[in-house]
C-alpha cells in the first residue's frame, strides 16, 4: 500500500522520532546498531528483543486492524464456545433420576466411574419424599348436592388415610418397622414462624397433609363450618413467589386441588407428603401395597420405578448478598477510576468499553478453556469474578494507552502504536511474569479452591495478554487514527484565541513577526497525518463506530440473554406458560391417554386402546369392590345416558402429569418446607420417591352424611356453558400472549429510553445526522465530516481544444492559454467567453487573405514538398520552420509535424478555400501581421459535416493550427484595417511602428507566461517576445521583441511588466498608456485588498510597452519563479538564490541565499511576506526589509511546488503531493494533507481559513484552522485520471482550475456565508 517513497520517508521519520530524548526509556529496535552487541548483557538483549518484537507487533496490528479484530473475535468465540455447555447462571435445582429397584444410598467417596452421575450425587440425601396422591370424587354426582360436597367428604377421608399411614407397620425378618422410626424427625419451627405453629408438625414426623389445617383431628374438621375459610386463613397476603402454606399442605398447586366452590370437574386432588429420614424399600413397598389395596386405582398406569434426586443450588441470602454487592461496588469503582485515566484519545468511552471487554472476554475465555480441558468450575462464578477482574486488572491496558498517546503525534499512526508498544514492552512483560509467579505460588498452597482460582487466573492472564496485544492494540490504533483531526478541532481554537500575530495590513512593516515563545510545545501540537483516501477496512470500522453497531449488538445480546433467563428459569416464564397451557388445555386431564374428558362420556369406547377396554370393561363384574367399579369409563358409559349434563359424572383419571406432580410446584417448595425447620437444602439434594396413587370414589350418601349444616348456604355455581371452556382457554392464551407482547414492547421502550439517555446523539463524532446522507458521494469524506448542505456546482468553461497551460486573472477577467496557443478571455463572474485570440469573429472575413497567403506559400513551397496533398492546411505547418527563418514570418513551432498518414481520412476542405484574392493588397508580405485568426471554426465545421469525429480528436487543433499560423502575416492586419476602418487600432499600429516596434503576433512560439491586468493580457513567449493584448477586443496592442531568450515568467504590476528570461536576465518594461480621451478609469473594487486597483485600459488607448531596464545577469541560471507584490519583484532561480528587486528602479536589493537547490516556489504578498521553496524541499521565510532568513523548515520530499501564506500559517505543496500546513511564527508543521498524484501544486487560499486544493477531477475545500475537509466539488462526470494542475483563486471567492482542456469556475458562496 505504501509506495516506496512513503515507506522510506516513514522509516526516516520513525528514526527521527526514535532518536528523540523523550523516548529514551527503552532501546528502540532501530537503535540497535548504536549499542555494541558484545557488551550487552543477557538482560539487555532480552529487553531489546522483547522491544523489537512488540514494535513489529504494533506495526502489524495498526496495519491490519480489521483482519486482526476479526481473528480475535473468532478466537474469543471459539474459546467461549464450551461455555454453552455450562448451565446458565441461576439457582434452579437440577435433577437426576435413578431406578428404584437397585437403589442404594450413594457413598460419600467419589468413585472413579461416576458415569453420568452428577458430582453432587454423593452421600445420602437430606430426606426422601414420599407422596401419596389422593384423587377423590363424589360419584355419581347428584343434583341435590351442594358445591361444598365436592370437597368436604373427599377431604374428610384424609384423616383415615393418615391414620392408616401412621399405623402402618411392616414386619419381616429384619424386625418391625414403623413410620415413626423412618420418618424425618423435626423439632421446633423457626422462631419467626409462630403463626404456622398450629398447622405444621413439630417434634415428630414431618408429615404434611391437608389434615394439618385441622390439627389432624377429624372432629375439628367436622365441626368446621367453612373449610375454605380455614384454608384461606393461612394464606399470605399480597404477592408471593415461594411456596405457600396451601401448596405445602396440599402438595399440589392450589389450582389443581379442586378445593373450591367452582370445581367443575368435581375431583379433589391432594397429597399426603411423608418426609423420610432413611430409606427402607420394604417398608415403603408394603405401605404402597397396603394403600393400593385399600384404594385401588384401576386405570392408573403410573410408572413407579424411578426416583428423582433434586439438587438445590446455593441460595444467596442477604447475608451473603451484602459482601457480594460490596465487592461488585469496589470492582466498579476500580473500573471507573481506571478508565478515567484514559486520556488524549478520541473516544474515552469507546476505549473504556474496549478495556472492559478485553478483561471480561479474557475471563470468559479462561472459563471456556478450563471447561474445554475438563475442569468444571466448582466455585461460585459470581463470587470470584470480581477478584479475578481485579487480579487481571486493567493496568496493562492503561499503560498501553498512555504509552501510545505519549508518542510524538506527528508520527504515522502505525508507528505510534508500534513505538508505544515497544516502550512499554518491558514493563508489561515484567508485570506479567510477576503476576504469573504470584499466582503460581498461590497454586502451591494446595488448597483446592485457591488452586482452582489460580488456574482460572493464569489462563485468564494469558488470554488477557493475548487480547491486549491483539484486540485492544488494534482498537487503540483505530481510535488514534480517528483522534487526530478531532484533536485538532479541540486544540487549535484555543490557540486561535490568542492575539493574532499579524493583524492584517497594519503591521505590514514588521513581517514576519519574531518567533514568539509559543504557548505549546511540540508534543502538544496536533498534526493530522491524514490520508485522504482511507482503506476500506477503516471505512468498515468507521461505519461500525458511526452506527454504534457494537453497542447495539451488545444491547440486543443482553436482551436476548435476559429473555432466555426469564424463559428458562425454573420459576420463570416457561414453567408458567406450561402450567397455564396444561391447566387450561382440554387435553390436560386425559394425560397420556390423549383422551379429552368429554370423550369419556361418549357411549362408544375409543377403539384404539383394546387393552384398556379389556381390562376395564370386564372388571366391574368380578371385582368385589363395587365402589371402585363405578369409576372410569365403564361407569361413565353407564351413567352418561341418564344424566345429560356431562359434568355430572366426575372423572378420576391418572395421567403422566400425575406421576411427578411435584414438578408443578414451585421449585422453592421443598427448600421452604425444610427451611421452616432450619434445614437448608442449599448444595444438597433430596430424593423424591414415586408417588402412591390413591383413588377415593365416594357415594353421594357419604357426602350427605359428612355435610356440615352451613354448607348448604353457598349458592350453587352458575352453570357454565360448555363453550366457555374453549373460550376461556383461548382467552388465557391470548392473555398470556398479550402480556408477553406488552412486556416486550415495554422492555424495548425502556431500553430505547435508556439508550437515548445514556448515549448522546453526537457521541464521538461530528454531525452524524447529515454526515450519513451522502457519504457515498464523497470519497474524500472518510471521517464522516459533513459537507455543507448547499451543493456547489462548478461552471464549465469549454472552448479550448488542448490542455490549458497558463491561467491569469485580475479578478474580473480570466485569461487562459492552451497548448495550442489559443488565448481565451472569460468573464470571471458569468463564465462567458468574451474573446478568443486569435479572434474567431474575424475568421470568415479574413479567410481571403489567409488562403491567398496560403496560395502564395504553395507556390513557393509546392515544389519542395509536393506529397502533402491531403490537406492543404497542414503543409505550411510542415515547412513552417524553414520558411519562418528565411522570410521572417515566424511560424508556430509547437505545431505538430505533418503526418500524412493520419490525414488521409480528413474531409475535403477545398470548398472552404476562397480564391477571391483580389481584395488583397499585393504588399501584404511586407506588413507585419497583427492579430491572429483562426481557421479552427471553419475546419471544425467541415469536420462535423464530414464524419463522426475520428478517434484522433486531438487532430483538429493540430491540423487547424497551421492555418492561422501561416496566413496571419498579412491577413489579420489587413482585415483589421478593413473592418475597423478608422478605429484607433491602425493608429496604434502606426504609433507602434513609428516607435520602431514591430507589432506582430507571434504564433510560432508558445506562450510560457501570461499575466492579466486591467484589460491587458501580457503574454510572454518562448521566442522572447512580450505581447500585450487587449483582452476585450482581442487585438494585439503592442509587442516587444527586445529579448531573444524565452520569457519564463512574467509579473505585471501597476504599469510595469517584469519578464524573466531563460538566460537569467530580467527585463523591466513600462506600459505607457496614451489616452486619447484622457480617461483613466478604475475598474472594480480593490478586491481582496492585496491588489492595487488595476487601471482599466480601454481599447481606445494607445498602449506602448518599452523596455526600461534589462538586468542581464540577474541570475546565473534560468529564472524559474518571478513574483511581484508590494513594490518588490522577487525572482527565484535555478542557482539556489532568491533576489529581491525594487520595482520602481529595478534595483536589486537583496540576494537571499539559503536554499540547497533551485528555487521552485516563491510567495510574496502585499504585506511583504516572502517565502520561498526549493528543490531541496526546504521552505524559507525571509524578512524582506532586512534580507534575513526568519525560518527554514524542511517539509517535502522533492521540490516545493507551491507556496501560499496566510496570516498565521504557510501552506506548501510539494512534488510528493503532500500539502503541509505550517505555523508561520514557529515554523512547526501543523498537519499535512495527502493529495492525489499530480495535483500537488494546485492549491489556493480563499480566505484566512479556507484552503482549496485540487484533486483527481475534484477540488476540495478545507478548513485551515482545523484541517477539516469541508467539501469536495467534482468538476466533471469522469473524475478519473484528470488531475487539477492549476488553480487560481479569484477575488470574488471563486476559484478557477484547469480540468484538461476545460476550465472550471467554482463559486463558493456557501463557504463565504459560513465564514461571514
Amino acid at each position: 500500500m505504501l509506495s516506496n517513497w512513503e515507506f522510506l520517508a516513514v522509516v526516516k521519520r520513525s528514526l527521527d522520532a526514535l532518536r528523540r530524548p523523550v523516548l529514551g526509556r527503552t532501546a528502540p529496535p532501530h537503535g540497535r546498531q548504536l549499542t555494541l552487541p558484545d557488551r550487552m548483557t543477557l538482560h539487555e538483549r532480552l529487553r531489546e528483543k522483547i522491544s523489537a518484537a512488540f514494535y513489529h507487533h504494533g506495526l502489524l496490528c495498526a496495519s491490519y486492524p480489521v483482519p486482526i479484530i476479526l481473528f480475535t473475535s473468532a478466537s474469543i468465540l471459539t474459546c467461549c464456545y464450551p461455555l454453552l455447555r455450562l448451565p446458565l447462571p441461576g439457582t434452579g435445582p437440577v435433577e437426576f433420576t435413578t431406578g428404584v429397584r437397585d437403589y442404594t444410598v450413594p457413598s460419600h467417596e467419589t468413585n472413579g466411574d461416576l458415569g453420568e452421575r452428577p458430582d453432587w450425587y454423593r452421600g445420602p440425601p437430606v430426606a426422601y419424599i414420599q407422596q401419596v396422591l389422593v384423587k377423590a370424587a363424589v360419584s355419581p354426582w347428584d343434583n341435590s348436592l351442594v358445591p361444598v360436597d365436592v370437597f368436604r367428604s373427599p377431604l374428610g377421608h384424609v384423616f383415615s388415610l393418615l391414620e392408616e399411614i401412621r399405623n402402618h407397620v411392616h414386619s419381616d425378618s429384619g424386625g418391625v418397622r414403623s413410620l415413626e422410626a423412618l420418618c424425618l424427625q423435626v423439632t421446633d419451627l423457626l422462631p419467626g414462624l409462630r403463626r404456622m405453629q398450629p398447622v405444621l408438625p413439630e417434634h415428630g414426623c414431618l408429615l404434611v397433609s391437608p389434615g394439618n389445617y385441622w390439627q389432624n383431628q377429624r372432629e375439628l374438621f367436622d365441626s368446621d363450618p367453612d373449610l375454605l375459610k380455614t384454608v384461606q386463613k393461612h394464606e399470605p397476603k399480597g404477592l408471593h413467589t415461594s411456596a405457600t402454606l396451601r401448596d405445602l399442605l396440599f402438595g399440589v398447586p392450589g389450582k389443581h386441588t379442586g378445593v373450591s366452590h367452582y370445581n367443575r370437574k368435581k375431583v379433589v386432588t391432594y397429597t399426603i407428603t411423608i418426609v423420610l429420614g432413611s430409606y427402607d424399600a420394604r417398608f415403603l413397598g408394603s405401605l404402597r401395597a397396603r394403600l393400593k389395596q385399600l384404594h385401588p386405582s384401576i386405570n392408573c398406569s403410573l410408572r413407579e420405578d424411578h426416583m428423582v434426586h433434586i439438587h438445590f443450588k446455593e441460595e444467596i441470602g442477604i447475608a451473603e448478598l451484602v459482601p457480594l454487592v460490596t465487592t461488585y461496588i469496589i470492582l466498579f469503582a476500580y473500573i471507573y477510576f481506571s478508565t478515567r485515566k484514559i486520556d488524549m484519545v478520541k473516544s474515552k468511552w469507546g476505549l473504556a468499553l474496549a478495556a472492559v471487554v478485553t478483561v471480561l472476554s479474557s475471563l470468559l475465555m479462561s472459563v471456556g478453556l478450563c471447561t474445554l480441558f475438563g475442569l468444571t468450575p466448582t466455585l461460585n462464578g459470581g463470587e470470584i469474578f470480581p477478584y479475578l477482574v481485579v487480579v487481571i486488572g486493567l493496568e496493562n491496558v492503561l499503560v498501553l494507552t498512555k504509552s501510545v498517546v505519549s508518542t510524538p503525534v506527528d508520527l504515522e499512526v502505525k508507528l505510534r502504536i508500534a513505538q508505544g508498544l515497544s516502550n512499554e514492552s518491558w514493563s508489561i512483560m515484567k508485570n506479567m511474569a510477576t503476576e504469573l509467579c504470584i499466582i503460581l505460588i498461590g497454586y502451591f498452597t494446595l488448597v483446592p479452591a485457591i488452586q482452582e482460582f489460580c488456574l482460572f487466573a493464569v489462563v485468564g492472564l494469558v488470554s488477557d495478554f493475548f487480547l491486549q496485544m491483539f484486540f485492544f492494540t488494534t482498537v487503540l490504533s483505530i481510535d488514534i487514527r480517528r483522534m487526530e483531526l478531532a484533536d485538532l478541532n479541540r486544540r487549535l481554537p484555543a490557540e486561535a484565541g490568542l492575539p493574532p500575530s499579524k493583524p492584517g495590513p497594519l503591521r505590514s512593516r514588521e513581517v514576519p513577526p519574531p518567533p514568539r515563545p509559543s504557548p505549546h510545545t511540540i508534543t502538544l501540537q496536533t498534526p493530522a497525518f491524514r490520508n485522504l483516501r482511507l482503506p476500506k477496512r477503516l471505512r468498515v470500522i468507521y461505519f461500525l463506530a458511526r452506527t454504534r453497531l457494537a453497542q447495539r449488538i451488545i444491547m440486543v445480546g443482553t436482551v436476548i440473554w435476559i429473555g432466555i433467563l426469564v424463559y428458562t428459569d425454573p420459576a420463570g416464564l416457561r414453567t408458567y406458560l406450561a402450567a397455564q397451557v396444561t391447566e387450561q388445555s382440554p387435553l390436560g386431564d386425559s394425560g397420556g391417554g390423549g383422551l379429552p374428558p368429554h370423550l369419556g362420556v361418549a357411549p362408544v369406547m375409543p377403539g384404539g386402546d383394546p387393552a384398556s377396554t379389556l381390562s376395564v370393561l370386564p372388571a366391574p363384574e368380578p371385582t368385589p369392590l363395587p365402589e371402585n367399579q363405578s369409576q372410569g369409563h365403564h361407569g361413565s358409559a353407564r351413567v352418561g345416558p341418564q344424566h345429560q349434563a356431562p359434568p355430572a359424572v366426575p372423572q378420576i383419571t391418572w395421567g403422566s402429569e400425575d406421576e411427578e406432580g411435584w414438578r408443578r410446584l414451585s421449585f422453592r417448595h421443598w427448600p421452604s418446607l425444610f427451611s421452616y425447620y432450619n434445614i437448608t437444602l442449599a448444595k444438597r439434594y433430596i430424593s423424591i420417591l414415586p408417588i402412591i396413587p390413591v383413588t377415593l370414589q365416594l357415594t353421594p350418601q357419604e357426602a350427605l352424611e359428612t355435610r356440615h349444616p352451613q354448607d348448604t348456604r353457598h349458592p350453587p355455581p352458575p352453570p357454565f356453558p360448555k363453550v366457555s371452556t374453549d373460550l376461556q382457554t383461548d382467552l388465557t392464551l391470548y392473555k398470556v400472549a398479550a402480556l408477553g407482547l406488552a412486556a416486550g414492547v415495554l422492555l424495548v421502550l425502556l431500553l430505547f429510553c435508556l439508550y437515548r439517555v445514556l448515549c448522546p446523539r453526537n457521541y464521538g463524532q461530528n454531525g452524524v445526522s447529515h454526515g450519513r446522507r451522502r457519504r457515498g458521494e464523497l470519497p474524500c469524506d472518510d471521517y464522516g465530516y459533513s459537507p455543507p448542505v448547499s451543493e456547489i456546482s462548478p461552471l464549465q468553461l469549454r472552448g479550448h481544444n488542448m490542455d490549458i497551460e497558463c491561467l491569469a486573472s485580475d479578478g474580473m477577467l480570466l485569461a487562459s492559454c492552451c497548448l495550442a496557443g489559443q488565448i481565451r478571455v472569460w468573464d470571471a463572474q458569468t463564465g462567458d467567453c468574451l474573446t478568443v485570440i486569435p479572434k474567431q469573429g474575424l475568421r470568415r472575413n479574413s479567410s481571403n487573405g489567409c488562403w491567398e497567403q496560403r496560395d502564395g506559400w504553395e507556390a513557393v513551397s509546392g515544389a519542395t514538398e509536393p506529397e502533402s496533398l491531403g490537406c492543404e492546411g497542414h503543409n505550411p505547418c510542415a515547412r513552417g520552420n524553414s520558411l519562418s527563418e528565411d522570410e521572417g514570418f515566424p511560424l508556430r513551432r509547437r505545431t505538430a509535424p505533418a503526418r500524412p498518414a493520419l490525414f488521409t481520412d480528413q474531409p475535403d476542405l477545398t470548398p472552404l478555400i476562397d480564391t477571391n484574392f483580389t481584395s488583397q493588397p499585393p504588399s501584404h508580405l511586407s506588413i507585419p501581421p497583427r492579430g491572429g485568426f483562426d481557421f479552427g471554426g471553419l475546419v471544425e465545421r467541415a469536420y462535423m459535416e464530414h464524419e463522426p469525429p475520428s478517434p484522433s480528436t486531438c487532430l483538429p487543433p493540430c491540423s487547424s493550427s497551421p492555418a492561422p499560423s501561416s496566413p496571419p502575416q498579412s491577413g489579420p492586419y489587413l482585415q483589421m484595417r478593413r473592418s475597423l476602418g478608422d478605429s484607433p487600432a491602425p493608429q496604434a499600429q502606426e504609433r507602434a511602428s513609428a516607435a520602431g516596434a514591430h507589432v506582430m503576433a507571434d504564433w510560432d512560439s508558445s506562450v510560457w507566461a501570461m499575466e492579466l491586468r486591467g484589460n491587458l493580457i501580457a503574454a510572454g513567449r518562448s521566442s522572447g517576445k512580450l505581447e500585450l493584448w487587449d483582452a476585450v477586443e482581442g487585438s494585439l496592442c503592442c509587442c516587444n521583441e527586445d529579448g531573444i531568450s524565452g520569457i519564463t515568467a512574467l509579473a505585471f504590476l501597476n504599469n510595469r511588466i517584469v519578464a524573466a528570461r531563460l538566460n537569467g536576465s530580467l527585463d523591466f518594461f513600462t506600459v505607457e498608456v496614451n489616452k486619447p480621451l484622457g480617461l483613466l478609469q478604475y475598474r472594480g473594487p480593490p478586491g481582496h485588498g492585496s491588489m492595487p486597483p488595476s487601471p482599466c485600459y480601454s481599447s481606445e488607448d494607445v498602449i506602448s510597452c518599452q523596455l526600461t531596464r534589462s538586468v542581464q545577469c540577474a541570475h546565473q541560471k534560468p529564472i524559474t519563479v518571478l513574483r511581484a507584490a508590494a513594490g518588490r519583484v522577487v525572482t527565484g532561480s535555478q542557482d539556489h538564490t532568491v533576489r529581491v528587486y525594487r520595482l520602481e528602479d529595478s534595483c536589486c536589493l537583496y540576494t537571499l541565499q539559503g536554499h540547497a537547490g533551485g528555487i521552485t516556489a516563491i510567495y510574496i504578498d502585499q504585506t511583504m511576506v516572502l517565502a520561498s521553496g526549493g528543490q531541496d524541499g526546504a521552505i524559507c521565510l525571509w524578512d524582506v526589509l532586512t534580507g534575513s532568513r526568519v525560518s527554514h523548515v524542511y517539509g517535502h520530499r522533492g521540490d516545493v511546488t507551491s507556496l501560499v501564506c496566510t496570516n498565521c500559517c504557510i501552506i506548501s505543496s510539494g512534488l510528493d503531493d503532500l500539502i503541509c500546513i505550517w505555523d508561520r511564527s514557529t515554523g512547526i508543521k501543523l498537519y499535512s494533507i495527502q493529495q492525489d498524484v499530480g495535483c500537488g501544486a494546485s492549491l489556493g487560499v480563499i480566505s484566512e481559513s479556507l484552503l482549496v486544493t485540487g484533486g483527481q477531477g475534484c477540488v476540495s475545500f478545507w478548513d485551515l484552522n482545523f484541517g477539516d475537509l469541508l467539501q469536495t466539488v467534482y468538476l466533471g462526470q469522469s473524475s478519473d485520471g484528470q488531475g487539477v494542475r492549476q488553480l487560481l483563486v479569484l477575488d470574488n471567492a471563486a476559484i478557477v482550475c484547469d480540468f484538461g482542456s476545460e476550465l472550471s469556475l467554482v463559486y463558493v458562496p456557501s463557504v463565504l456565508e459560513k465564514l461571514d
Partner: protein
Amino acid sequence: MSLTLTAMADNTVTSGQQQRSGSEQLPRPFRGPYISVITNRTTNLVIRSAMLFSVGVFLALVLNLLQVQRNVTLFPPDVISSIFSSAWWVPPCCGTASAVIGLLYPCIDSRLGEPHKFKREWSSVMRCVAVFVGINHASAKVDFANNVQLSLTLAALSIGLWWTFDRSRSGFGLGVGIALLATLATQLLVYNGVFQYTSPDFLYIRSWLPCIFFAGVITMGNIGRQLALYEYKVVQEKTHQD
C-alpha cells in the same frame, strides 16, 4: 528527597501565607468555599478522618457479615440483625482504628521525608481494597485443610498485598506493628471474656487474625495516603495560583 523537602517547606509556608492572606483579603473570587475548606488544614483533617472512619465502619460491617457462616437458613427472619450480630462497639472501634491508621500513614511519610510515590491512583487504591476484601472472603469461605495452611496462605497474600500496592518500608513496619498491637488487644479482650470466637484455634484467637489486620492496615494506609495526596495537590495548585 530535597525536592520533597522543599515541597514540604512550600507547603508550610503557603499554609502560613494562606492564613495571613486569608485574613488580609478575604474575598478571593477564584477560590470557592470548597477549595478553602479543603485547604484549611484542620477542616481537611476532619474530613479525611471522617471519610476514613466511615470506610472503616463499612468494611467492618461487611467483613463481619462475610464471616457469618453460610449454613444459615434461606431467609432467616433475623438477617438484618445478623449484620449487627457482633457487639455494637466493634464497627466503631474498627472505624476509629482505620481513621487513626489512615492519618498516621501520610503523617509518618512526611515525617520520614519520603512521600509515597508508588501507584498513587484511585484505581490502585480500589484494587487494593478489592484484594483486601478478597483475602477476607478467602479466609471466610475457602475450606482449608488446617489452620496452619490457612494462616500461611493469608500471610503470603497479605505480604503480596503490601508488595503490590505499597512497597514502602515504613508501611510494612507500621503494618506489622499495628497488626501485632491489634492482635494483642483482641487477645486481651478474648482473655477477659469480652469477646469470643466460635472456634479459636490458637491461644483463644483465630491464628489468621494478624494477617487480616496487617492487610487491613496496609489498605487503610493506602486510602489515607491517597486522601492526603489530594490535599497536597490542592495546596500545590493553590501555590501555583498565588
